[in-house]
């Protein structure tokens, strides 16, 4: 039986939730409504001339073949970024969990990259992999002889921004995986070991299912990260190029709205982006969450 506390009068309850409601209204709903209104208007950046145009902005973006292509790029980019950062985060987490010495130091060092802003992460990787001045790029082309050129080759560029975006998120995932792993009872793993299960089998049969709530949570968070927070990486590394190969939806919003000052188009795009991410998240909760085991 769950204990419930009762408020004697409803007034107090409403009073207590008022601040939260006000904050949500002011910082979430108000801007969202503004965005919605803006997406139906054509207006100049200074806000002195604007006209209501119904769905013209939406019509324009959906008849633009490049916008549709950009949706595809975004989905691929986000899935790849989330997968890489989850896989590497899980790998490092399980390794660090088994470390015998300097566990705390290892953990601290692995958490550090999270403090790096996406734009800086982009610059760091650019210094490694830019064909003109990148150290690793020099090694790749001069020593190994790989034709590496993200400035010209769309696939190379996409690979570069995925690596730079995923790298930064690994630390975040690592922290959660560490915590998740520590919550798994040793007795289960030991029992499996006594029954003759090898390390890999123990991982897949015991650890992985027990981690599924963490994995599910992180998948949702990573996809949201890849959708929204990576424009800094793309801005510093490729600016959406070459030829639009790394032009993700959120970067287009930034490019059109903040650099191009085309507010109507930008607002319409961000609305589409919002609908898209809500759909993805709902789908995840409906279909993927069923496979998650919350109780041990």
């Amino acid at each position: 039986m769950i204990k419930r506390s009762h408020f004697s009068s409803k007034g107090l309850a409403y009073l207590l939730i008022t601040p939260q409601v006000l904050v949500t209204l002011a910082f979430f709903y108000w801007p969202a409504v503004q965005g919605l209104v803006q997406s139906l208007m054509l207006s100049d950046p200074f806000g002195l001339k604007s006209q209501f145009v119904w769905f013209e902005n939406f019509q324009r973006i959906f008849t633009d073949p490049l916008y549709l292509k950009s949706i595809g790029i975004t989905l691929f980019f986000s899935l790849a970024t989330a997968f890489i950062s989850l896989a590497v985060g899980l790998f490092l987490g399980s390794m660090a969990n088994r470390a015998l010495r300097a566990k705390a130091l290892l953990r601290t060092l692995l958490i550090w990259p999270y403090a790096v802003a996406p734009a800086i992460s982009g610059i760091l990787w650019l210094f490694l992999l830019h064909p003109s001045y990148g150290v690793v790029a020099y090694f790749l082309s001069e020593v190994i002889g790989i034709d590496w050129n993200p400035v010209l080759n769309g696939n190379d560029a996409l690979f570069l921004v995925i690596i730079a975006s995923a790298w930064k998120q690994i630390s975040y995932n690592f922290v959660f995986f560490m915590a998740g792993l520590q919550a798994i009872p040793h007795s289960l793993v030991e029992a499996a070991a006594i029954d003759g299960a090898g390390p890999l089998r123990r991982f897949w049969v015991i650890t992985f299912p027990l981690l599924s709530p963490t994995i599910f949570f992180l998948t949702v968070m990573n996809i949201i990260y890849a959708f929204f927070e990576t424009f800094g990486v793309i801005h510093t590394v490729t600016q959406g190029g070459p030829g639009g190969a790394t032009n993700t939806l959120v970067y287009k919003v930034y490019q059109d709205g903040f650099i191009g000052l085309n507010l109507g188009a930008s607002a319409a795009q961000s609305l589409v982006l919002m609908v898209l991410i809500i759909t993805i998240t709902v789908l995840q909760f409906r279909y993927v969450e069923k496979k998650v085991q919350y109780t041990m």
Partner: protein
Amino acid sequence: MKIRGAATLFSLMAAIVLFAGQAMAEPITIEWWHAMRGARGETLDKMVKAFNDSQQQYKVVAVNKGDYGEVVNAGVAAYRAKKHPHILQAFEVGTMTMMRSGAIYPVYKLMADEGYKIDWSGYLQAVLSYYVDEKDNLLSMPFNSSTAVMYYNVDLFKKAGLEMPSKTTPLTWDQMDEITKKLVAAGAKKGMVTTWQSWIQIENYSAIHDIPFATKANGYEGLDTEMAINNPKVIKHLERLKSWMADNRFSYEGREYQGANSTFVAGDAAILMESVSGIGNVQKNAKFAWDIAPLPVEADMKQPQNSIIGGASLWVMLGHPKEEYKGVAAFLNFLAQPDMQKLWHKETGYFPITLKAYEELKQEGFFDKIPYQEVGIKQLNRTKPTKNSRGIRLGYFVQIRNILDEEMELIWNGKKTPAQAIADATARSNEKLREFEKTNK
């Protein structure tokens, strides 16, 4: 008691501050938001300090608000909140947005209202013409203006047994064909690289050859302008560059300037097309002899036009009290004085905006000492600007440049032919132009 003691001290301090304020007739503050960082920012601060020290009435406060895009953004946001500065620096591609905004006080009007009789013919016309309205009235004060020139690696030219190009007569593109061949044959890793591909290889290329970039006099004479780049000359030029990529005579190093600049500075490319404002960087980092020549022209172009400028200008924003605009006018007038312009040119490489400052620099022998600093000015001043060469005035120009970048990249990586890419760029840009036209009707 402790608390009462602190309170007394506090009120005493407040009284002193108030009293001091009344006694010294606070100067009027003029705010200026700009995008100049590093060495340029330091020179700018010197100029502001010189103005503040020259009189007591006004105090200019210069604030760096980030890069060009961020400064315009900050200005827009501040204007909506009615907390905008008096002066906003905006890049050349934002000219249309600013002039159409209804939020600006045209500079010609400000100066006339405040009683300054300025002889605008004493300014560099190719600079001024970028910022005038259809009646030739100046809308914003040119501040940092540059143009594109051709840097070359003297050591690599010598190694290839080539003659050094002239500082006044441009090479022809046919000569470039030969030169880049020889350079690569003599061991240069790359022949030629370019920064700002749209600005240099399309916008400046069109201006120099006196062909329109857009209809309606490059957009100066109406919002119903359309792109005019889909012409045989531009397409042929891009085809040529594409064909040079096969044997490394041309190499694409990325958007903006960083990639191409570092390739040249590392000695990997023999020729770099870049803004004159890049001189500082090359000076500092190049470990070889180098020099500057004008941008190449087609052989049939006997009288090449002036190249066009890049950079930014200062916009005066509406919504401040009358007496503050007096200070703004005084400051703009101060900036245009020869001393300030000479300082600006010497330390940053950006052009002096008045002919007087240019003449004085000549008389001081500045260009005899550093002849390459004059190549850009001469290229800019070699003819009277025509409708095709005075500048480009398009709405959503930032996005149009972005479209051009994208489509040109598709040429360089072989996904589209130049003709196809230019046709697509034209169609996509025209859509942006129509959108801007509709917004600003």
